């Protein structure tokens, strides 16, 4: 008997109990749809986070105060140590090769005000290189430049979101805003980068760092009589030189901070690659977790199939007896029922894939997340569904095949 005939036979048997077959299939449909949709959404989230991180700046190296290892337990310890403006000056002077930009930054949250509009926003004092390092583009006006810092001008550049919130449809360039009661003139607006979900790069106010020290930050930026910075950003000129630059910066800062070899530094240097790696681990764990949940629902679906097939074998005992009487061998009966189960899970798998892709598509259309349906994930879900059909089909099929023909024929 041909496989295709077995398949047709299975379809007919399933059609004989359409409602029951459909309900049985539902378990697999939901399982496969969940796997496909969750993986597509997970992939989409990963891709979006990755592109956001890459969008923070190219070959970005971040130096922050605090220790390298940040476990939750000693997170207070991690705050020990500071970065100083002088650290920036040292790095700026000494690390020259392979660096395309360097800028310290000091951030603090202030109330900004224009007309009747006012809200709290992160205000960051920066140097000229900050914009190119962070891959900010100017939408309107100009950025912060060297002379703004030299002359301690009270000028500000607004992020796209901040400009929108504060000015609405008005052109902010040339207008005066108040930051913590200090008057600043808006000289430029940044192009929107899109929310990264980590911190919104469009909801910022950039001012010259020197202006900040002298007019805004006050004592909050002073420690032990020295000007501190929140972060020092460096941009390597290529991805190959990132590690070299990190090495140089670490060596210089350890010397500057008088840290003995082997002792833990009071600052930490991370590159975008480290960040990407961390995020990758997180999203991978998340995807595996979601996949496991979906796999459990597939398993439950499989048990449902087995249950129904066992009922079906009992109901069709006479039919099995007859088939055996007219010459069907044990293997032929086994194959018939196995193919019936496989057909059920195969159809369920196909419908589930369509449904899963549909759900992923709805997520994309609604703008919740740009889901990515990968062929390998679809194939995996499908294979898994078939394997479930095979696994849970074997026992009922074996039961059917093992029936004694005479007893089966006389079964009432």
């Amino acid at each position, binding site marked *: 008997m041909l496989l295709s005939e077995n398949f047709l036979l299975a379809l007919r048997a399933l059609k*004989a109990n359409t409602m029951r077959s459909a309900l049985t299939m539902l378990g697999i449909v939901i399982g496969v749809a969940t796997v496909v949709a969750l993986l597509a959404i997970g992939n989409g989230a990963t891709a979006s986070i990755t592109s956001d991180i890459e969008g923070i700046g190219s070959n970005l190296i971040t130096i922050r105060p605090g220790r390298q290892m940040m476990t939750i337990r000693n997170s207070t310890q991690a705050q020990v140590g500071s970065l100083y403006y002088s650290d920036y000056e040292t790095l700026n002077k000494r690390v020259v090769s392979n660096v395309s930009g360097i800028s310290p930054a000091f951030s603090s949250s202030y109330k900004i005000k224009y007309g009747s509009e006012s809200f709290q926003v992160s205000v960051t004092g920066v140097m000229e290189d900050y914009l190119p390092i962070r891959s900010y583009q100017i939408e309107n006006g100009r950025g912060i430049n060297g002379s703004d810092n030299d002359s301690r001008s009270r000028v500000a550049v607004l992020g796209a979101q901040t400009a929108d919130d504060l000015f609405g449809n008005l052109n902010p360039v040339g207008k005066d805003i108040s930051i913590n009661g200090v008057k600043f003139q808006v000289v430029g607006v940044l192009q929107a980068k899109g929310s990264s979900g980590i911190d919104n790069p469009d909801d910022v106010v950039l001012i010259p760092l020197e202006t900040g020290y002298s007019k805004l930050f006050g004592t909050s930026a002073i420690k032990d009589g020295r000007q501190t910075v929140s972060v020092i950003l460096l941009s390597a000129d290529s991805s190959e030189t990132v590690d070299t630059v990190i090495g140089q910066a670490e060596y210089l800062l350890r010397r500057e901070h008088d840290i003995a070899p082997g002792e833990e530094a009071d600052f930490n240097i991370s590159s975008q690659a480290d960040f990407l790696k961390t995020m990758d681990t997180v999203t991978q764990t998340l995807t595996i977790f979601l996949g496991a949940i979906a796999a459990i629902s597939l398993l439950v679906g499989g048990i449902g199939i087995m249950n129904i097939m066992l009922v079906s074998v009992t109901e069709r005992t*006479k*039919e099995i007896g007859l088939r055996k009487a*007219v010459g*069907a*061998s*044990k293997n*032929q009966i086994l194959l018939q029922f196995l193919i019936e189960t496989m057909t059920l899970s195969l159809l369920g798998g196909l419908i589930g894939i369509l449904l899963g892709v549909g759900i992923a598509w709805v997520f994309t259309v609604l703008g919740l997340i740009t889901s990515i349906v990968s062929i390998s994930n679809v194939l995996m879900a499908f294979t898994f569904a078939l394997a479930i059909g095979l696994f849970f089909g074997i026992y009922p099929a074996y039961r059917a095949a093992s029936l004694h023909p*005479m007893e089966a024929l*006389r079964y009432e």
Partner: protein
Amino acid sequence: MIVAENLSKVFTMGENEVRALDGASFTINEGEMVAIMGPSGSGKTTLMSIIGCLDVPTDGRYVLDGEPVESLNESELAQVRGRKIGFVFQQFNLLARTSALENVMLPQLYAGATMKERTERAKKALERVGLGARMDHNPNELSGGQQQRVAIARALVNEPSIILADEPTGALDSKTGVEIMSLFQSLHRDNGQTVILVTHDSYVARHTDRIIRLSDGHIVSDEKNPSPIKAGAARDEEH
């Protein structure tokens, strides 16, 4: 041709041994029409299972067309069944929602015939039982007699050496029963088909040439029936 020597079948039920068949010996030649008779519990169903290769004896020899069958394994038995035995059951045992033609094609499917062969032979078998015009009907669209004819066509389709019928008229009214008996007689008379009827009804048994009586697993008598009832003729006489 069937040669049965000292057939025994023992079933173990819990701690009890039930000797359903106890040393039955007989020979049925090709072309014979035989009835196996006995009350329920006499072992006739067990004997039928063994003759039909649905089961193997615990003891004894069973040779079917020169082939010893008693020691075959399950899949070999299935092959022998498909090739040599055509079953007819009291309850017809047709597949529901399946046309008469496809029901008759079923044994051919397991015999490994091509689709074309299957269809041709099934059509021929249905025509032989007088149902050429109702091939596309499902069992629920056919009368009891017609359903049993489909079952007989199914038994014929593989051209078996033996038709083994288990109470074939048991579920039919007497008039339809006569028609079915007439069909069996004509298969026997015109085609030389070996027919074995298993029944508890002596009236049915008297349509055959030879009656084997069973009781408590033993053959109590094995006699020729010199004047079998002619099913068609009996009806003619009534008119």
